[in-house]
Every structure is written in C-alpha cells, then in structure tokens.
C-alpha cells in the first residue's frame, strides 16, 4: 500500500462575521472537489470535523480571529490544503 499523504496547515479566519453561511458553502464545496479526506478544527482545542460537511463546519461556529487547522489525508492532499487555506486567506473571495 502506498503511504497515505497527510498534510496540515493553519490559517486565520478574518471575515468579520466568521465562517458563517456563505463562506461555509464555499469552503465545503471546494473541499468536496478532492478525493482526499479533509478535516477542519478550530485551535487551540476544537474537535476535528469533516470539512466536506457544511452542517458540521457551520456548527463549529468559527468566529473572526479564530486560527483554524486543516488536514488532508490521501490523494491530492497537498493541493486540497493549498486551495482551502488560500480560500480562507482570500477572505472567502468576499
């Protein structure tokens, strides 16, 4: 078996209303484009949730200023991490 690639990155939510409805739609839609398993959590000690589930991502209630960690495991992990962190950094293109 090929060793599953694991990649992690941290990024800060800067949208004034946090990771709310519209950004969460964008974030989970982008995550779903990748085969890799993608997880998200709020630092320092939030629970990991499936980054492809808008229900779970929204329920994290990630407010502005929160540092989040994104982890991808499997095919395309590297690209998934880069794209998702980029979306957060670009303030969800808003």
């Amino acid at each position, binding site marked *: 078996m090929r060793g599953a690639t694991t990649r992690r990155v941290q990024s*800060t939510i*800067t*949208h*004034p*209303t*946090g990771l*709310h*409805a*519209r950004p*969460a*739609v964008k974030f*989970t*839609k982008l995550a779903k484009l990748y085969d890799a398993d993608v997880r998200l959590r709020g630092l320092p000690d939030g629970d990991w949730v*499936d980054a492809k*589930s*808008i*229900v*779970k991502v*929204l*329920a994290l*209630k990630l*407010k*502005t*200023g929160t540092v989040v960690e994104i982890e991808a495991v499997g095919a395309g992990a590297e690209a998934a991490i880069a794209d998702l962190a980029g979306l957060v950094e670009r*303030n969800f293109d*808003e």
Partner: protein
Amino acid sequence: MSERRYPGRVAAPGLAIGPLLRLPDPVGHLAACSNGEPGAERARLTAAIAAARDAVAALAAGDGEAMAADILGFQLAMLEDPALAEAAIAAVDEGADAAAAWQAAMAAQIAVFAGDDDAYFRARATDLEDLRDRVLLALYGDRSDPPALAAGAVVLARELTPSRFLALDRQRLAGVALEAGSPASHVAMLARARGIPLLVDLGAIGEAAGEPGDGRVVIDASATGAGALIVGPSPVTLEHYGRSAATEQTEALAAAGMVGKPAVTAAGRRITMMLNVDDPDAVPDDLLRASDGIGLLRSEFLCLDRAELPDEATQYAAYRRLLQRLGGRPLILRTFDIGGDKPHRAVPLPREANPFLGLRGVRLCLARPEIFRPQLRAAIRAAAHGPLSVMLPMVSRAQEVAAVRALLDAEAADLGLGVPRLGIMVETPAAALTLDTMPIDFASIGSGDLTQYVMAAARDAAGPVAALADPLDPAVRRLLRLVVETARQRRLPLSLCGDMAADRAGLEAVLAVGLEQLSVPPAALGRVKLWISRVNG
C-alpha cells in the same frame, strides 16, 4: 376598539399601512402521525428531505436576486449534507417516528446556535428552523399554497424563516411585524434589500390582533432603532400616517428614478453625494455604486451585539471588504464614537451628570489607547488597498488632532505603510471657530451635534427645548458660513454629513452657504438628489 401600540426594533426601515394577516407557526397545527415500520419511516424521512431539497431548488431557480440565491444556496447545501439527518435516521432505525426523530434531531442542532453570544450565529437558528419546518411539512404531505395576501398586506408572525418570507407575494406585501426575529437574520437582510419595512422583537401580541377583518394596521419603522406596530389605529392616526404614506409614494417614485443619476442643481452645480453608513451589509452594492462613496462610516457598527470591541484583524477585514465593494470610491472612516449618550458595554465609564459634554468620541479614544490603537492600525492597513480616510468625532482643539496624528504616524511607521488622510467632524463650536488652526486634510460638518452645542438644546429634547434645537437658526447658519469661508481660504475639502442635508429646508440652506459635498443616509440618496435638481442655485 381603542388603538394599541406595540413597540419593536426596526430591522428594515419604512412605513406601511394595510390589512393585517396573521401567519400561524407553520407546523404547530399539524397532528402527530402514526408510527410505522422502521424501514418505512426511514424511507418517508429521506423522501421528505428530498422533497424539501427540490422545493428549495425550485425557489432558487425562480429568484434571480443575488442575496436570495445566496441564502437558498446555503439551505440547499445543508439539505444535501447527509450529516443533517444522521441523528434522525439513527433514531428512526431504532423505532422512532420519522417526524418525532427529525424534530428532536433538529432541536439539538438549533440549540447549538440559539444560545450563541454572537448575533450572527444566533440568527442561523432560524435557518435551521426553516429546514426543519420544510421537511416536517413534506412528511405530513402538506400541499398548502403560500398564504394569499390582500394588496398592501401587513404580515404578523411569531418568527419568519427565509423561505416563508420569499414565498410571500412581494407585489402585495407592504410590511412585516415579528414577535421575535433579529436584525441580523437573513429575513432582515432580504427585507432591507427589497425595501419592505420590518419590525422585530415586538414581544407576544394577543390573538385579538390576529383576527381577520381587524382592519388596517400601521407599521411605523420610519426612524432608526425604535419603531411600532399600531393595531386598531384611530382615524387621526390613520390620517397622519396616510398623508405621510401618500406623499411618500409620489415622491418615492420620482426619487427612485434619481438614485443612479448625478446630483446637479437646476443652475448646473454638481454636488458630490456620499453616504452615511451604519451597517454596510444593509446597503446593497448598486446603491454604493450610485453614490460618490461613503462620507461617514459609523465604525460602531462593528460593535453591535458584541460583548467585546472588535480587534485589529476584524476591523481590517471589514474596512478592506468595504473598500472592495466601493470599487475605488472613497471611504471616510469615523473612528469609534463611543461614550456619552452612546455607551458600549465593553467600555465601562464613570457615570456623568452631562454625558453630551463628557468623555466621548476622540476624548475617550485618546484616554483609552487600547481601544484606539487597533482601530488606527486597521485603518492604516486597509488604506493600503484603497482611498480610506480617517475622521475624528467630537474634536474641540487642535492639540487633540495633533495627538492623533502622532499616534497615526507612529503606527504607520511601525507597519511600514503610508499615513491615511486625517480629518475631523466639525460638531463643536470650538472646532468650528478654530478650523483654521486644525492640522487636518479635510473636515465634515456634523450638523446635529453642532446645532445642539451652539443652541445649548439637546438633540433628543422634547417640548419647548426641541424647538430650540433648530439647525436653521440664524446662530447655526452664521457659524456654518464661517466654517465654509474658513475652509475655502484654506482650500480644505469640506462636506456635511449631518441629518440637515436629508431635510428639504436644511438642504436648501446648506446649498445656499456654498457646500458642494454632502453625505446622507442611503435611503435618502434618491430623494436628496431629486431635491437638489429642483434647487435654483
């Protein structure tokens, strides 16, 4: 029947008179359903979720409005996520009734948001209630049509979800009054975008108010902040509001046609028209683009419903986003105007006998650098991305401006960025009289506060004192002329951002003293442009 007034909060401004339609809670009247086989119940639940999904998709396809599309797209994504029904399906597989399992599972998810301390996340509970109700209606096989509205109807409900709001006939809907509700809800955003007056937080209103044939009711959401639903209005009340509404309608039509046009007087003078903005999310993009920029951003909007003041990162993101939306138009950021009559719970202040003359505006900011510094840094960083200027409220002396300038220079040097333009609100007689000495790049007259300080008459006074708080008083006009003359000699850009410009007589006086840059509330932009086109000067 005697007239009753129910006070509430204005979530979308306007005035409405019309027949009342009380909407019941959507699922409260449905009877419980019998318990079927787990397999059958599971199939019923998944079919109901699919039906709800299709209904939302159909709504989304039928509504071209960007904001409605965003909100419905969010609901669609939620309904398509298997995690939404995970707990309900598990309960059904263990023998629970589909409706009961769904309601319990959604109650748990709604509770996650309902108790949050952030108004934005709190408002998402309503979105989940919307999804819960849609699926329940599908489970019960509800095929009821959206409620039939009489022309100009005023809808009263406990709470309204986005899909129920969107299902109302917008041609016939004059206004909405909610016993619960929130200005941060998706419904409030939609109402503001569509110009439908919305009152929230009315508290429980008795059944009597909901009887059909109760006659017309009035929604008075014309002021900012507090409004009222008037049930059983007296003939005098009806005439009062009816006259305002009729005049408003004719003028509103003409004004609406003026919004996107340049403001030019009958004599051909071009007036720069900017906006006073409280909450940028409440101002649609097309209105921002119809203006010459934001002449007054009341940055306190970032603090509303928050226990703490926003930090540098939050402010930077908000200012930068607004600059992006403005597409190159200028943004004048007024620094926090906290204190005095505008306290904030994150900033405990000593009680003052006369808060209007106390620790407020720039006085408070200079006294509390931990509040001011993050705002200045956020402004400097945002100004690197667009034409942002910083404007100080409640300035009395040049030394205050010099102190801010020193702070601004130091922070800009620390960040390695340029220093934004710095200006002041002219709202104290002291600032008006010493405008020639102020180390500033621009100034803007705050006519409301200037009037109250010149006349020594509180702006919120009642009775005989209220008559004194008149911006057209000769004393105020003389001072205005002095300010305009001083600015002209200094070649200092000068505007006026007080309420005076949004009042017809006030506007004429302001144009008569030679001001050519005004900033008005977004809702007044068309109206003021219309008035300007009629001024012969």
